[in-house]
């Protein structure tokens, strides 16, 4: 694309300004995490912190950070794996297979996205409670194993893959599931990775549902554990910011690792 000898610096300028706007709150979070609580509430704001590195160690002291980190990892892993499996199967079926009522079922599935999420809170809570799964890992992950959004996303993806490979495999005598598993899934890897990354992000940041379902702080994921740092009248923002910064590091690393895969993979399959 545009490989001419054009000067790129205007592009860089625009992108850099945009990047500054994108990163500013994160930098603010970093600065706040190094202040004292008194500094955070003052007006006008202080831009130079007083370098309270102890806030970071304090987070480990005030919350069960390590344990909750593992909880987050576990909950996220289960949800992502299940979603990738269930959603890819359903997405493939919606995209490539024909069966009566397919479009109606797809629309029905989409309807799930159109309801405000708080509508689900109480019914799901009661379902989980009736199954005796309150305050357990199973209870937290169960509703999140199924995603209309992920299916929609992957369906779009499958729909844009070329037919030829599939038809060739069919001529070779492969059955439907075999085609799906051995042919389409590998082709769909970039899409699966993207969907996986987004699901990981959603699951990692999930707050309200685990907060309502889990009572023991040893079973809470990180988001809930950190939210406990909010006091009734005075919240120690530096601690909160430090904790959530630490919590966001895995996500950044994950994105770094995945983004290469996504753009690489797509670029490879794009050229025909």
């Amino acid at each position, binding site marked *: 694309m545009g490989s001419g000898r054009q000067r790129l610096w205007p592009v860089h300028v625009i992108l850099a300004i945009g990047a500054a706007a994108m990163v500013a709150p994160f930098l603010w979070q970093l600065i706040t995490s190094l202040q*004292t*609580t*008194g*500094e955070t*509430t*003052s*007006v*006008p704001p202080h831009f130079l912190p007083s370098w309270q590195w102890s806030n970071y160690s304090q987070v480990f002291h*005030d919350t069960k950070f390590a344990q909750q980190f593992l909880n987050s990892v576990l909950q996220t892993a289960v949800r992502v794996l299940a979603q990738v499996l269930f959603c890819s199967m359903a997405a493939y079926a919606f995209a490539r297979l024909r069966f009566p009522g397919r479009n109606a079922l797809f629309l029905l599935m989409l309807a799930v996205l159109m309801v405000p999420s708080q509508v689900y*809170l*109480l019914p799901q*809570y*009661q379902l989980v*409670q009736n199954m*005796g*799964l*309150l*305050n*357990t890992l199973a209870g937290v992950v169960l509703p999140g194993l199924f995603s209309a959004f992920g299916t929609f996303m992957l369906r779009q993806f499958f729909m844009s893959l070329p037919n030829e490979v599939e038809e060739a495999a069919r001529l070779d005598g492969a059955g439907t599931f075999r085609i799906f598993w051995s042919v389409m899934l590998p082709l769909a890897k970039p899409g699966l990775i993207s969907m996986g990354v987004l699901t990981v992000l959603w699951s990692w940041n999930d707050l*309200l549902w685990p*907060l*309502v379902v889990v*009572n*023991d*702080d040893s079973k809470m994921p990180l988001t809930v554990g950190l*939210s*406990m*740092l*909010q*006091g*009734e*009248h*005075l919240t120690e923002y530096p601690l909160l910011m430090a904790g959530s910064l630490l919590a966001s590091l895995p996500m950044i690393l994950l994105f770094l690792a995945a983004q290469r895969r996504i753009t690489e993979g797509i670029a490879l399959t794009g050229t025909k």
Partner: protein
Amino acid sequence: MFRKALVLAGAGALALAATGCSSSKSASSGQAESGPVTLTYGIWDTKQKPAMQEIADAFHASHPNITINIQLTPNADYWTKLQTAAASGTAPDVFWMSTTRIGLYAGQKQLLSLSDKPGFDNSPFPKSLNDVYTLDGKQYGMPKDFDTVGLWYNKKLFDAAGVKYPTATWTWQDVIDAAQKLNDPGKGVWGIASPDWTQENLYNTMLQAGGQAITPDHKKSGFDDPKSIAGLQYALDFITKYHVSPTAQQMTDTQPDQLFASGKVAMFADGDYDMPEYKAATGLEADVAPLPAGPDGKKATVINGLANVIYAKTKHAQAAWEFVQYLGSKEANEVQAKTGTVIPAYNGLSATWVASTPQYHLQSFIDQLNDAVPYPVSKNTAAWTTPMQTTLDQIWGGKLDLQTGVKQIADQMNAELAKE
């Protein structure tokens, strides 16, 4: 020997029943508490957790078969979670209750009445607190702590302007005079911050003028009483007449307590609970005095406070009652006093809290107990406070004049109260 075996047998049975699930479907209700019992205790302030844990441990020491499991939920989400759990029968056995929700929970039969339990004694607590937590003659909450409102002031600004510090004898006029002298737009300093916050400002000014937000029987709005309107006018005048207070918009962009902590306003009527914030503020030299008296010499503040309540569907009513009794005891309240975060409801223990931060005249908050009026509530407080606040926001934002706005509030309130 025999009793030990019984306890062990009971322990075994309960352990089996309790594995895996939390307080969901296990049987055993209404039996005498023979085996070990675990009670869940729902709270919402992380700063008070250590104190609550200490109380729970002390209770466990004297009642070895009852273990308390504290469940902390941040204040912002506490009611969402509690509502969901209570609607499903899984709320904690004992939990914190506030004055704004007591009507809802008690009225909808989600709580056990405490006043008909054996050994109930609410005499160590202020009457106004007991009253707030009483519905239809039954008291549902054991008062835990209380909050009153005081006039915080910035000593440095007062000194710079040569104004004498507020005292217990101040009246509205003194505040107005001082605010005018302290107001210094050139330096970006206001004399006073007067937001449309009800607990800290408006409920109190209405009372000081001789009016009220709601009638004591919770049946009618007091907003259209001319005296109440005078109280509101006094607060509004700081913005519109004397121009010594930031506007509502300015106080929304930057909260008044932040403005005070940063030395941008010289006076601010605020509760005792913001004391930690002011203590931690860098470079703030402040102090607090009782609220001024109204035009007829009337002094008043609303008193607000939390209470401990028992969930109606608890499986361990007896154990829960024992715990709540302990929570209302002198020992438990002393533990609260030590931490300096709240003023315990137990009469006479406030001295420890006062002594925790000697640089402020915290006694001002205690002295006002005599003039304290119960916080305005009804069976479904949120149903009328939500539109009330919206209308107050309109008035304060200059979109609605006071007379029309007050009529609107009164009508809305009366409509909601009629439904109860």
